[in-house]
């Protein structure tokens, strides 16, 4: 089936979220997964069956504070 994962279309044989994460080489403990805008609890990964055309978002943590303030440097 064809899924949209993090904005990219991907053909997969994986049936569940657990299988998909394994296929993508992603450690389940470090990510959150959303299917069609609904967050799926980690405990449900194994029994959550994906459907053709599902939109999936997989997120984790990256370095971040706030965003950069965008004006030219001031001169003092």
């Amino acid at each position, binding site marked *: 089936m064809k899924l949209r994962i993090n904005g990219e279309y991907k053909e997969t044989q994986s049936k569940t979220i657990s299988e998909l994460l394994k296929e993508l080489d992603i450690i389940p403990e470090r990510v959150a997964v959303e299917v069609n805008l609904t967050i799926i609890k980690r405990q449900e990964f194994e029994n959550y069956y994906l459907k053709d055309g599902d939109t999936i978002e997989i*997120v984790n*943590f*990256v370095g*971040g*504070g*706030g965003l950069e*303030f965008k004006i030219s440097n001031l001169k003092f």
Partner: protein
Amino acid sequence: MEDKLVIKGIEFKSRLWVGTGKYKDFEETARAVGASGADVVTVAVRRVNIVDRKSENLLDYIDPKKYKILPNTAGCYTVEDALRYSRLAREAGVSDMIKLEVIGDEKTLFPDVIGLLKATEILAKEGFIVFPYTNDDPVMAKRLEDAGAAAVMPLGAPIGSGLGIRNPYNIKIILEAVKVPVIVDAGVGTASDATIAMELGCDAVLINTAIASAKDPIAMAEAMKYAVAAGRLAYKAGRIPKKLYATASSPIEGML
């Protein structure tokens, strides 16, 4: 005597909190965080790179067992986005803490305080420990407290601007207006700015750019550690009142 910060039952060792954005690499991030002595680090929630799975994970360098991970909603411009990111962060993370940002303007990155208030109310009801990033406005700070914020995080100056605490009087009024801790977030440029925030009586300071973008981030991280500690000590020691004229510090009696 120990001077620990406790928020919603969580004990914080350090009053300096640091961001993890804009470093050269994770190695440098980890060294700077270590040098800062901070036990709270903010992180951003982003898509996993599914194409290049070799990309390293921040949490390989910043151990969630050692540090309190504070996810933020940086980059969110609507209440819906901020809620979505907060809920994803909670699901991916190790705690219910969220540094809530609802940005109102791309150029200044000033908060959309109306959206912020709405999001704070909803997330607090969902059991989140909400740290809203807000303007240095005492009225809004109070409203956020009433909405269930665990602490308020007024800006010292715009994010990444390094302008320091532009309005110490507003920060002072915020400190009087709310009972929850006040954590200055954004605007610190150098060590003395952090000290000023702490001397005013703030409970903590969150710094990212001033450390990450310094010529020597590791040294600046260490400077900030001392600056925050010095400011806190001075606050607790109590400053002398400001006077217009001189007061002699040596006794006048016994002079020839």
